[in-house]
């Protein structure tokens, strides 16, 4: 019976993970997975004929208090590092379980699984805490590299494997401890060289590892719940890791071994601007209440008017309110935006001029700047030294979120820099306007 109840728990994990990967069902998914965990724990406790429950109760209470406290109190901005630390604890737990079992007579097969559990668990532990330190700013986010790095890591890894082999062969359980020590060191050495900006990918990979460690521990104590749950996380976590590096346009190998992705943590890549992906922007648009398109000369150059209209159609099909804000001097001739949007058959009542747009912008969820620049430059309003000071602008910085679609950070007609791009409400989507809008249309249909 206990096995079948574990199977129920596993099924809940599976359904939970599936839902977690879709925006609309994620929260329920998490709850289902938690329910699965509850089932597994209760079944175990009921079935257990333990010598003493003291340790168990003490450990669970302590852990619950610490975990609950951290989860509630830590600032939202520190979430990634918190997850890293939790993950480290999970790896540690698997290693501990294996170490407990390493005492006494151990079959070779079991020895191998103990070794795997200890090695992977310890590596996860130290790696996760280095990642935590980098994200928290305790350790420098800069990639730390020195010559012969890979060789050193290889040596440490070999030492760990050797210690484990010795332990398995001789039955000397202290060998597993040595192996664990080597793995701890390896975790530190492997993560230190990776830049802070790449930490999320590293944490995800370590998360996949902690699944494998749990699975290995499951082999040690011959428990199917651990094997199934661990394998699930191991595999799903790996796929997620790959997707995360894809989203950064990197390969996983490149993330792990290049020492690239330097600078401070957070998503700040390529200067001080926040760079978004098509998917980021698509989700923001799909769940927005109102969207304001702000076309400029770049829309004309890209001939992106039809794509803009398509995106607007896709959003309206999701009950998002859409308008277009036309600045009097957008483009390169009077009425430039009008002629293009009329060609794309945008209804006239969606076109707003400056006076109509600005009051609306402060109530807009997302302003999408399509190849405009000077006409949304806040220095015309804020910086008396600017050559365009005094020109009325479209105050897109009053919207909740600003998405800027252009190919680079280069300036527009007036040849001046635009502080909007560096605002923390702004997400830059660097691409040709037509391509970006078409990609957004495709992406939105997924959500």
């Amino acid at each position, binding site marked *: 019976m206990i096995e079948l109840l574990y199977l129920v728990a*596993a099924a809940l994990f*599976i359904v939970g*993970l599936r839902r*977690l*990967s879709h925006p609309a069902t*994620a*929260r329920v*998914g*998490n709850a289902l*997975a*938690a329910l699965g*965990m509850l089932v597994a724990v209760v079944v*175990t406790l009921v079935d257990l004929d*333990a010598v*003493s429950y003291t*340790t*168990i109760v003490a*450990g*669970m209470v302590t*852990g*619950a208090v*610490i*975990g609950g406290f951290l*989860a509630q109190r*830590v600032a939202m901005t520190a*979430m*990634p590092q918190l*997850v890293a630390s*939790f993950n480290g604890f*999970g790896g*540690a737990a*698997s290693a*501990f*379980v294996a170490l*407990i*079992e390493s*005492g006494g007579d151990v079959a070779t*097969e079991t020895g191998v699984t103990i070794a795997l559990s200890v090695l992977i668990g310890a590596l996860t532990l130290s790696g996760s805490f280095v990642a935590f330190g980098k994200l928290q700013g305790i350790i420098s986010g800069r990639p730390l590299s020195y010559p012969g790095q890979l060789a050193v890591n290889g040596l440490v890894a070999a030492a760990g494997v050797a210690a484990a082999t010795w332990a398995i062969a001789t039955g000397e359980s202290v060998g597993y401890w040595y192996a664990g020590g080597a793995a701890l060191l390896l975790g530190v050495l492997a993560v230190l060289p990776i830049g802070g900006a790449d930490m999320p990918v590293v944490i995800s990979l370590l998360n996949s590892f902690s*699944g494998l*460690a*749990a699975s290995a521990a*499951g*082999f040690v*104590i*011959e428990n*199917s719940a651990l*094997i*199934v*749950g661990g*394998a*699930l996380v191991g*595999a799903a*976590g790996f*796929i*997620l890791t790959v*997707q995360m590096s894809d989203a950064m346009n990197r390969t996983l190998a490149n993330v792990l071994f290049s020492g690239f992705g330097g600078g401070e943590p957070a998503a700040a890549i390529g200067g001080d601007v926040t760079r978004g992906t098509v998917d980021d922007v698509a*989700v*923001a648009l799909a*769940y927005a209440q109102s969207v304001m398109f702000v076309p400029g000369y770049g829309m004309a150059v890209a001939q992106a008017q039809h794509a803009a209209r398509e995106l607007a159609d896709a959003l309206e099909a999701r009950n998002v309110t859409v308008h277009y804000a036309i600045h009097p001097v957008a483009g390169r001739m009077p009425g430039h935006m009008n002629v293009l949007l009329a060609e794309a058959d945008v209804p006239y009542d969606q076109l707003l001029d400056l006076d109509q747009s600005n009051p609306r912008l402060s109530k807009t*969820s997302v302003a999408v700047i399509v190849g405009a620049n000077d006409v949304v430059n806040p220095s015309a309003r804020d910086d008396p030294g600017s050559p365009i000071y005094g020109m009325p602008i479209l105050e897109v910085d009053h919207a909740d979120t600003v998405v800027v679609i252009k190919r680079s950070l280069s300036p527009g007609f007036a040849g001046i820099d635009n502080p909007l791009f560096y605002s923390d409400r702004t997400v830059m989507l660097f691409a040709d306007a037509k391509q970006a809008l078409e990609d957004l249309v495709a992406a939105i249909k997924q959500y």
Partner: protein
Amino acid sequence: MSDALISGIVVFVLSGFVGFELIRKVPPTLHTPLMSGANAISGITIVGAIIAGGLNQDTTATILGFLAITTATINVVGGFLVTDRMLGMFRRKLPRQ
């Protein structure tokens, strides 16, 4: 190889396939919550910790057991709670009230 090991491997491989197939294209906004949720599930090792810790062999084992249970519980409880918190914020952040 023992039967238990073999059936363990079968179960492991099949679960791995489920895990691989499970994750389709995930929107980047969900990357962190999903990672966090998956991490909480990897806390299933708590079951192992309870079983191993409950055996209460000697002092070392007891200490290790306590540590294992504590760390695993932190992972499970903290993990699920923090995921829920993230997702709650995520929902609220997008549509403006």
